[in-house]
Every structure is written in structure tokens, then in C-alpha cells.
């Protein structure tokens, strides 16, 4: 089972790296947004500092959603999803591996780029660890939610819009607590409360999410 988990993880990462655009697009998008905002907005640093957190979260959300449609659809269309379902690997494990890969590909680059963001938004350097930490805690939940949305709508051709409707409201708490953590960090206050909350949500999502996603996939491939 461990072997299968890592095999799926490795496969998805390999594929992502072969189609470099999948990795590079969110990153480029991030850089563009990060460098554009200070241009568009008045470059006064007091002003910028206030919006840095918001921009970070919106971008993280958007880059996760970018890959949303594709997360299971590619596997469904080339038949590898049905093979996975028939294999001895529990589907929940396979889902966890796929979501982990998606997370590694979309989020880790963002975390690595936070210093760039901090620079362009004139954030105090001290807030960087908070930012990175908040991202690392909030984004697993985000990835699970996105995957759930993708799985629920896999069987659907007509109403994919619901993905957005399903997932986006569910992400609101993440964004609100995440932003609050960063804002507290910027003004030097204690960030523990929102971070605990994000961690609790992540634990919940990672433990229950894959089962629900697997169930939705089974209905979806019929």
C-alpha cells in the first residue's frame, strides 16, 4: 500500500514535470500578480502592506483551482482511473496520493516564492515564516476541497459550474483565517489562534476527505 502510494505520487509528479506548463503557469501567474499589484496600486508601502496577505491567499486559491478540472478528468479519459479502481490499492489511498501530488505541484512553489511577494509588498521579513506556515497549514484543506469538487462533478458534463459553487464557499473560512494570521503577523501580534484552526481543519480534511472523494469517483466513472 505504501509502495502503491508512492508509485502514484511519483507518476503524477513525473507527468506534471513532463508538461512543465502545469508547474510553470501558476508560478508565472503568481509572479505577474505579485509584480503587477504594486504597479497598479499606489506604491506607498504602508498601503501595500495591508493588501499583501489578501493577494497571497487569492493567488494560492486560484492556483489550486487552476488544476481543478484536470485533476481526475485526465485519468478518467485515458482509462487509468478505472484501472486504479480495479487494482488492489484502496481507492482512498490512491486519491490521497493524487491530492498530495497536486498539492506539491501547486503549493510548494508558492511557498518558495513568498519572499518575492514579501519584497514587492513591503512586508516585514519577520512575517515570512508566518506566511509560509499559514500556507502550509491551509492549503492541504484547499487541495482536498478542490479534489472533492472535481470528483463530485466528474460524471457531469452539463453542470460543472457547481464545482465553483461547491468549492469556493467552502474555502471562505480558510481565506478568512489565513488572512487574519498574516495580518496579525504583520502587526506583530500572536498568530497561534488562526493557525491552530487551520491545522484542525487540515487534519479533518486529510483524514476524511479521501474517503469521500473515492466514493464520489466511484459514482463518477459509471
Amino acid at each position: 500500500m505504501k509502495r502503491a502510494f508512492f508509485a502514484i505520487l511519483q507518476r503524477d509528479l513525473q507527468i506534471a514535470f513532463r508538461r512543465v506548463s502545469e508547474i510553470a503557469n501558476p508560478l508565472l501567474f503568481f509572479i505577474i500578480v505579485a509584480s503587477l499589484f504594486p504597479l497598479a496600486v499606489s506604491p506607498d508601502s504602508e498601503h501595500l502592506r495591508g493588501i499583501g496577505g489578501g493577494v497571497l491567499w487569492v493567488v494560492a486559491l486560484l492556483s489550486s483551482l487552476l488544476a481543478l478540472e484536470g485533476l481526475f478528468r485526465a485519468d478518467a479519459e485515458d482509462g487509468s482511473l478505472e484501472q486504479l479502481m480495479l487494482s488492489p490499492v484502496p481507492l482512498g489511498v490512491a486519491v490521497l496520493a493524487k491530492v498530495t501530488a497536486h498539492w506539491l505541484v501547486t503549493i510548494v512553489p508558492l511557498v518558495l516564492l513568498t519572499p518575492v511577494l514579501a519584497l514587492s509588498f513591503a512586508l516585514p521579513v519577520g512575517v515570512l515564516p508566518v506566511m509560509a506556515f499559514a500556507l502550509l497549514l491551509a492549503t492541504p484543506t484547499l487541495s482536498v476541497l478542490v479534489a472533492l469538487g472535481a470528483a463530485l462533478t466528474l460524471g457531469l458534463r452539463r453542470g460543472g459550474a457547481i464545482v465553483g459553487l461547491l468549492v469556493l464557499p467552502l474555502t471562505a473560512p480558510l481565506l478568512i483565517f489565513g488572512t487574519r494570521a498574516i495580518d496579525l503577523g504583520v502587526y506583530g501580534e500572536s498568530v497561534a489562534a488562526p493557525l491552530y484552526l487551520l491545522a484542525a481543519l487540515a487534519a479533518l480534511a486529510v483524514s476524511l476527505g479521501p474517503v469521500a472523494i473515492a466514493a464520489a469517483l466511484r459514482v463518477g466513472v459509471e
Partner: protein
Amino acid sequence: MKLPRWFHLFGSPPFVYRLAGALIPWLGGIACTLLIVGAYWSLVVVPPDAVQGEVYRILYIHPQTAYVSMMAYVVMAVTAGIGYIWRIKLAHAVAVSAAPIGASFTACALVSGSLWGRPTWGTYWEWGDPRIMFETLLLFLFLSYLALRAAFEDRDKADRVSAILAVVGVVNVPIIHYSVLWWNTLHQGPTISKLDSPSMATEFLIPFLIMMAGFTFCFYWLLLSRLRAEIVERERDTRWLQDALQGGRA
């Protein structure tokens, strides 16, 4: 797993259809009586509040609708879960019937809370408040449950996929309930729920509880009425239903 006989009985549309038909007048009668009595009591009998004046009377709408909205979600999630696991179509029918009612109660709770917030907190809406946020999420869950169903052409598939969403969303209910304890919020802590040492005078408590019971009965009344309609919709091609409808008309 071996299921008891009554389980199958409740899985049989004709039985439930008839049972609901028998219960609806009773539930309706009780709900209306309680709501009328409760409304009179809470609006006329009890005196205005020392601090808030007349505004506090939202106390007799807001917590009740909020509570029923959460109960409606639990009913929906549990029946959807039963339907998914044991493949009982009727359970899905109950879940579908509960969703729009629950959504309406949620909307009432949000609106009444928001109206109450203006005089007490000085704002209609405060995003940072967890209870407000998660209650809003509840509304979205009801709506996306309905939207997801609507997107499927095949009812069976719609039942099973939407059930997963309903079950996943149930984690939101305890979060709503405990949010006031977990975080310091603008929102009121538990007032009534700690019944052993109620922080409300009996005078206010009685109409409060009457309204609570009234709205609860009202929910089940609406639920069974919708369920009957849903059964008619789903079973329209079956003999028993046609017989039942004919019989009713004759």
C-alpha cells in the same frame, strides 16, 4: 449486514406515503397551535427587555430558526447517508425534501440575526465572526446540494453523488454550534442549551421553548408534505401510486 424488518418497512414507498398522509394533519395542527400561542405570548404577554427594548423579541425567532436549520441539515445528511450506504431510494427522497426547507430556515436565521446585529453589535454583518461565517456556509451547502442534484440527468446518480456532499458537509454543524465556545466572538454564548442553570428568566423561557417546539413541528410538517410530493414524482409510473391516487379521488 442484516437489517431489521422495520428498516425495510420504512424503505417501502407505499407504507411511507400512507404514514406521511396520516401524520401530516396532526403535525400541521400542532405546529400551527404552538406557533400561534407562542407568537401571542412572546409578542404581547412578555414585557420588553430592560436594555434592548422591543428589539429583543427577535429572540423568539432567531435562535429557533437557527436551531431548526441545523437540525434540517442533520436530517438531510443522515437520510442521504442511509440512502447511500443501503441504497434506499426513499431515504434520498427524504434528504431531497429536507434541503429546500433547511435552506429557507437558514436564510431566516441569517436575516433575523443580521437584523438583530444592527442594534446590538452596531453592524449587520461581520465576516470575521465564525458563527456567522459557518451559518452562511450552511446555506451554501444546502444550495450546492440542490444545484449538484439538478446538474445530473440521471436521478440515481444525482442521489448518490449529492449524498456524499451532504455527508461531508455535516462537519459544519458542530462547528456552528461550538464556534461560540471555541472562539471569542461577537455572538452570544449558549443561553438556553445549558438547561440545568438557565441564564434566562422563566418568564422569557416559556414562550422561547414554545416557539422552539412550534418551529420544530413546522419543519417536520413541511418535510412530510414535500416527501409525499417527492414520492409521487419518483413513483409516478407504479401501479400502487396510481391506485392510491385514484382511490383518493373516488
